[in-house]
Structure formats: structure tokens, C-alpha cells
């Protein structure tokens, strides 16, 4: 049974540091081998999960949610009030989105999401997080210098726009609802979804543009 023994685990990490292979691929291979030998895991199921998160579950789900919210005011209202129920309508409720919150960008507000303590992320609607989201550079700076971080991503935020940073310290997860790009009244949900960048749903992108426009 689990001992919850932090002192022991710290020592175990020292042993692992010395005895595990240094190469990450070999480490993970060793983990898989042991789990399979112990009958704790079926390797085909690992394949299935990889395929699921490569082909089905990913930021296109998030983009669909955003586009639908742009097109359907009732859905948007449900989304902002109770995001888990709203995304469940699309069968997108899942891993790490049981307490999802949707935060809306406006002309006067920009939202940015981070997890300073680990790298919490709304997996079932955005898939695997980008490496920068999990790196110390982003995690350390997003809460202290969000405008500097945004500038590094090429996003200039004027002084009259309020920046709101959301540090995911609990089991709540955040999806930024970016502003609908101008001049897109004629587009349908699918076309709109194709304009939604992953970064815009984290908050490191702001001004979305129509496909035929060149972003300056």
C-alpha cells in the first residue's frame, strides 16, 4: 500500500538519479517493461492512448468550443456559466476538465493562463501542452512580468488593456476565449475554428486573423 513517505521518496529519487539510465527513452522503456512484466499495464493500451491524444483529443477540440461560442450566444452563455456541462454537450469533457472555467478576452481585458507549481493544463480540450508551457522560463515569468512574456510571443498589449493572469493552483482549469476576428461574419463554425490558435486559448496569442490576411 502507498506509504505517503516523503523522506523515503526523496531518498528513492537519489537512488534513481544514480541507477536509472541517463537517456530519457531508456528510462521510459524500463518503466514500461516493469509495468508489463508486473501485469499492471497492457502495451497495446499505451498505443491506444497515444493515438487518442494525437488524432482525436487536442487543441482542435478547444478551437471548436471557441468557434461554437462565437456563433451560438446561448452556448457561449452556458460555457461561461458552467463550462464542464457545456463542453460535455460536445463530448469533450474529460481528463482535467471536470472543473473547467472559460475566461473571456474583451477589448479591455486580456487573459493569460499558467501553472507556476507544476504544469496543470486542460488536457481533454487542448491535448498535450507545449514544452514552453511546462518550462521554468514561462512558469516563473508569467505571473511577474506577463506583458514582457506576451511581448516575447509578439503580442503587444496597450496600457489601457488589463492583463489577468490565472495561476492554476487548484483543480480548476482555464480556457481563454479569444475575441472573434473582425470581418468573419460570413464564416461557418469549421472555418472559424481553423482560425483559433492553440496559444490564443492559453493567452499567449491575442489577435486572431482571417486565413487570407497576413499577420503583421
Amino acid at each position, binding site marked *: 500500500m502507498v506509504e505517503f513517505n516523503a523522506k523515503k521518496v526523496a531518498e528513492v529519487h537519489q537512488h534513481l538519479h544514480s541507477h536509472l539510465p541517463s537517456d530519457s527513452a531508456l528510462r521510459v522503456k524500463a518503466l514500461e517493461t516493469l509495468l508489463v512484466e508486473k501485469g499492471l*499495464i497492457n502495451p497495446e493500451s499505451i498505443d491506444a492512448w497515444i493515438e487518442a491524444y*494525437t488524432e482525436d483529443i487536442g487543441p482542435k477540440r478547444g478551437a471548436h468550443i471557441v468557434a461554437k461560442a462565437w456563433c451560438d450566444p446561448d452556448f457561449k452563455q452556458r460555457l461561461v456559466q458552467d463550462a464542464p456541462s457545456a463542453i460535455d454537450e460536445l463530448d469533450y469533457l474529460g481528463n482535467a476538465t471536470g472543473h473547467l472555467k472559460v475566461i473571456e478576452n474583451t477589448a479591455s481585458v486580456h487573459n493569460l493562463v499558467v501553472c507556476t507549481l507544476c504544469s496543470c493544463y486542460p488536457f481533454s480540450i487542448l491535448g498535450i501542452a507545449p514544452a514552453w508551457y511546462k518550462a521554468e522560463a514561462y512558469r516563473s515569468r508569467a505571473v511577474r512580468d506577463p506583458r514582457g512574456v506576451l511581448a516575447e510571443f509578439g503580442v503587444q498589449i496597450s496600457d489601457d488593456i488589463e492583463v489577468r493572469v490565472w495561476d492554476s493552483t487548484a483543480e480548476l482549469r482555464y480556457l481563454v476565449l479569444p475575441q472573434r476576428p473582425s470581418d468573419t461574419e460570413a464564416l461557418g463554425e469549421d472555418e472559424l475554428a481553423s482560425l483559433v490558435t*492553440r496559444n490564443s486559448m492559453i493567452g499567449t496569442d491575442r489577435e486572431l486573423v482571417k486565413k487570407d490576411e497576413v499577420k503583421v
Partner: protein
Amino acid sequence: MDGIHDVGGKQGYGAIDVDEVDLYKTGKAFHHDWEAREWGISRCARTPDITIDWWRHCRELIAPVDYLSRPYFDTWAQTDFATYIDGGFFTLDEVCSGHSNSDNNPFDEVPPKPMSKADAVIADSQKAFRFDAVINDQPIFTIGDRVITNKHGHSGHTRLPQYARNCIGKIHALNGAHVFPDLSAQGKQTHQHLYSVVFETGELWPDTANKHDKVFLDLWESYLCAK
């Protein structure tokens, strides 16, 4: 724990890799195959009794240089090893040798059946865990209340980052009662009211450029006092 993981506001970590390719645009989700394997392992491994908070604490306990220098999913694998050892599923000898030393299956059942991609997609939807519960205690604070966060942490797992300690904020939202991570990391399930608390950046960093930008944190009731 005042550990290396608590990086919010820490300085010196340099530039962000803003040029990283959005892999999903190329039809991929992972930079390396081993990352994909680790992700899959983490999704389908059966680890009874482990709480997410205990797993997070085990990751925080990785030595600082390893925590900072090893790739992200590599630290997941190391955390898995550590929790399986702590849970009695693996021995350190088995990990070092790379093979199981016994036929002892810790489960009585037969090894799990293979899943298809469709099974995985359905299983993912069943992982929409909720951490809230109805408790008898009424929330102490209400929206708009001024609160001050605790000055100190403790040696165990906690979710009040160092940068937001002893800071004055306002209750932005009530989120019901959620599993309290500090005790959950010790295997004890209790619930406390969870608040979204908003801080002006000027309160957190006096030398910040835009003092009226906001930082929101989700904080449990015992992290807060009325101010």
C-alpha cells in the same frame, strides 16, 4: 515545501522558446516517441490509493538539478518509479535491474485487456474527475472580501506559492469545497472551501510596470485570513 518547483516570480530562467512548433499543426502531439510512451503509461496504469497530490509531491521531491535539467515527461517517469516503489509495486532492485523479480502480481485479476483508440477516448471522458463535495461548514468568505494569505508554508505539499504568501487580495469567486491538497498528499481526504482570489500585481511585485494588472489564484480557506 519550499522546493525548486515553486518557480512563480523567480528570476534568471531566461527566454521562453516562443518558436516551438505547434506539433498538432503537423499531425503530431509529441516531440519524441518516449514522451508519447510516458503519456500513455500515465493514462492507463492502475495505481490504486495514489492521490494526484501525493504524485505531485513526489515530483517536487526530485533533486533540484534533475528537476530543472531533465525533460518534462522524463520527470513524470521518475515520479512514477518513485510512487510505484513507495506503493510497494516495485522494489528498488527491480528498477535497477530493469526486470520484475517475482511472479507476484499485486492484483488478483488477470492483466488488463488491450484498449482500442476508441476505448481510450471514452476512458478519457470518464477521467473528468471532480474534486468537490458538499460539506457542512459554510464558507467563511464571500465575494469582494479582503483576505491576506498565510505568511508561511510547511515542509509538505501545499498549493500556496511562495510569491503569493502574506499578500492581500480579494475574493473573486467561490468554487465550493474541494479536496484539500496538503492533507490529500498524505492520503487523508478532507474538503475545504476553495476560492478564486485576485491580487493586484503591485501587491505581489512593487517594481512591476503595470500595478493594476491582476493575478488570480485558486486558494483553500485555510490559506486565507480576513484582512
